[in-house]
């Protein structure tokens, strides 16, 4: 049986649903890798698809991908298809690998094409990760590179003056799409596919019909909503 997945639809969180999550992730397949960037809090982001300009004028000349995969605070591992190396953060305990492990700077991580630019996504597969029970993600590229995202338990930030008492929701990882939707996953097995932009006034699909000439009638109180 054939079917269609509406990438501009919305999926509200409703507990574990592996198959639907996998279906939404399949929109990544075939998209070219552009570059990796390290954001605030040392968050790794992979940019894929088509280069786009930022919306905010303060970020002029700062390009991003039409797809943006953000690992948030999760551990991750990148097996390069370009060079015989594995780059990782949080998956392996470096204390047990002191002979093999070399720290890498943010600049080197962004500058070195561990994934060949233009390499296409061949697979984007979620999996149930231990020990959180949340969903991890494995992305395979056509150059032989692979990226693994493995959720880690949530840490509560230290109290700081002025900070809100309520800890905000932090996903294990997120995928921003060019369809004005984003996929958020975790913590735990919760996930959703929801609008990534604030709602704009609806644009009429058909031009409004011209109003008929106003008929003379007695005025009503309260306007049109008064019933």
């Amino acid at each position, binding site marked *: 049986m054939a079917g269609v997945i509406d990438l501009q639809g919305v999926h509200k969180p409703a507990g574990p649903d592996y198959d639907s999550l996998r279906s939404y992730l399949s929109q990544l397949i075939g998209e070219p890798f552009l570059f990796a960037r390290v954001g*605030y*809090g040392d968050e790794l982001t992979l940019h894929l698809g088509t280069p786009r300009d930022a919306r905010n004028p303060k970020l002029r000349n700062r390009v991003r991908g039409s797809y*943006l995969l953000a690992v948030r605070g999760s551990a991750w591992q990148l097996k390069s298809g370009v060079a015989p190396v594995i780059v990782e953060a949080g998956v392996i305990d470096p204390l047990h690998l002191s002979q093999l492990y070399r720290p890498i700077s943010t600049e080197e991580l962004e500058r070195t094409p561990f994934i060949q630019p233009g390499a296409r996504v061949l697979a984007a597969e979620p999996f149930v990760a231990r020990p959180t029970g949340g969903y991890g993600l494995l992305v395979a590229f056509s150059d032989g590179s692979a990226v693994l995202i493995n959720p880690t338990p949530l840490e509560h930030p230290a109290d700081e003056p002025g900070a809100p008492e309520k800890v*905000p*929701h932090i996903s294990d990882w997120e995928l921003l799409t060019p369809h004005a939707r984003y996929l958020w996953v975790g913590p735990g097995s919760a996930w959703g596919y929801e609008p990534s932009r604030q709602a704009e006034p609806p644009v009429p699909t058909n031009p409004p019909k011209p109003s008929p000439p106003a008929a003379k009638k007695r005025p009503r109180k309260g306007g049109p909503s008064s019933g």
Partner: protein
Amino acid sequence: MGHKRDITQSQAIAEEFGMDVETRFEFGDYIEECKRQGDRGSGKRGDFTYAELRAKAREFLGLGDE
């Protein structure tokens, strides 16, 4: 691996200022860009405190000083 404390704080600021998800991503890029250009916070590794992040959010959104 990302520092969840910093990510949590920038998320809280984004929610406080009503940023949508795309704006929140751009705000993260903006504060990281500020750090790289030498406009560093008073926290460890040049990270911003919550109050400094609030000021950065106002700057980013063009809201002016409080």
